[in-house]
């Protein structure tokens, strides 16, 4: 296993599978009465978040605490970054605290890659710009494996704002590596002009989710409205929203996934989000297990 997890592209199929299996072992730990293990006792992690995040940060923090890490949160609002300190100086300062792991979220693509080269600590990418969110892809794979017995051979439709989605970018690579077929579905304005090799692109959602084993909805960033990506959320929902009527086009046992937070009624109908096929809350639980596995396994 490498020192860092900055990109899902950096880990092999075997390593990806090992991470998924280890995550499933950790999931059992999370079901115990005492959910903490002393695995990384005496080690320190800094959660360096340059972008507001409640969910991912909470998930990482919980995962770290379950592993008995000492956790320090370094949020941008309280950091010296706002005072004009360079990113590199911030990282060097933090490294001088003597830390072992650095979890980074940053609005610029490539920052975790940049930092990983500058520090001895193990760097985990918690989302960089529109580039990657590797632990999200892994937790999605864990959820699929748990529910479907495996990822290989699954037809996975990823729907919505593909262009700006780090979740989609990491998922495409992870899923294809594990042998799934990936479809990208959404308005042409929100799908890259040069999609990754091997994926199928659909502008028509009915075609895009027909027979799919997994329908993964992405969050529509509401600030994209008014930037000519789509005319209105109402029109978006009509053509690319997941309604109950549309879901029947997918396989009857299709899983409905969403990385959260959801915009109910914009990309996903409220009743679909809560339907028995929805595994959205399981994704959240698996997120903790996956992040434990990742931090535990990095070397």
């Amino acid at each position, binding site marked *: 296993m490498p020192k860092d997890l900055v990109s899902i592209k950096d880990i092999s199929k075997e390593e990806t599978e090992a991470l998924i299996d280890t995550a499933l072992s950790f999931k*059992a730990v999370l079901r115990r*009465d005492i959910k903490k*293990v002393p695995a990384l006792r005496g080690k320190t992690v800094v959660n360096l978040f340059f972008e507001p995040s409640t969910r991912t940060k909470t998930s990482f923090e919980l995962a770290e605490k379950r592993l008995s890490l000492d956790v320090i949160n370094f949020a941008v609002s309280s950091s010296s970054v706002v005072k004009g300190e360079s990113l590199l100086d911030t990282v060097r300062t933090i490294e001088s605290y003597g830390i072992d792991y650095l979890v980074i979220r940053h609005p610029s693509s490539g920052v975790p890659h940049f930092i990983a080269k500058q520090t001895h600590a193990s760097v985990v990418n918690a989302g960089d710009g529109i580039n990657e969110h590797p632990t999200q892809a892994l937790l999605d794979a864990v959820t699929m494996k748990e529910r479907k017995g495996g990822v290989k051979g699954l037809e996975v439709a990823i729907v919505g704002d593909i262009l700006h989605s780090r979740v989609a970018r990491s998922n495409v690579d992870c899923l294809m590596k594990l042998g799934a077929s990936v479809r990208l579905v959404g308005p042409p304005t929100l799908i890259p002009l040069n999609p990754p090799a091997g994926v199928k692109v659909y502008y028509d959602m009915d075609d895009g989710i027909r027979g799919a084993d997994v329908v993964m909805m992405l969050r529509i960033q509401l600030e994209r409205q008014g930037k000519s990506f789509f005319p209105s959320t109402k029109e978006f929902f009509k053509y690319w929203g997941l309604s109950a009527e549309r879901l029947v086009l997918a396989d009857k046992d299709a899983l409905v996934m969403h990385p959260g937070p959801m915009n109910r009624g914009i990309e996903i109908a409220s009743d679909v989000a809560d339907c028995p096929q929805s595994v959205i809350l399981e994704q959240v639980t698996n997120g903790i297990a996956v992040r434990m596995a990742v931090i535990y396994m990095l070397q």
Partner: protein
Amino acid sequence: MMNKELLNKQDIERILSRIAHEIMEKNKGPEKLCLVGIQRGGVHIAHRLSARIDMIEHVSVPVGSLDISLYRDDISRRKKLPIVRKTDIPFDISEKVIVLVDDVLFTGRSIRAALDALMDFGRPAQIQLAVLIDRGHRELPIRADYVGKNIPTARNENIEVQLEEESAEEKVVLISGE
């Protein structure tokens, strides 16, 4: 490298029967008794002990499996990553007599980790330790309650317990290094 067979399949079976009897004798019957095997060899041995106790006393003693990799004290020295295997203790261990089962007792560090792990599952009335082989070289004050066979070894030697469950020819082998 030199391999020397120390026990064969029959030897192992005799030893396990004896330990099963000893466990019954010491605990005056199977009530409140549970077996917890340490991954991986200990789990198979625990299941076999349970089966033998069933034969002797006609009661089924519950068996759990315990993975100790998250409780080890050598995480920062690891070269190869320990695979986290399944921990499955499908019963409440509180107020129970737990017999912890492992294949080889060596430095005692695994048992220390297993004790810590068990404590996270509840507060047993008592914990006993059963091992197939005790090869000496203890680094912690730990002693087994039931020992299949004491085998004096050198530190650079290795004991390998091969079991049928791992689809191997069943035997215990002493491997001499260099």
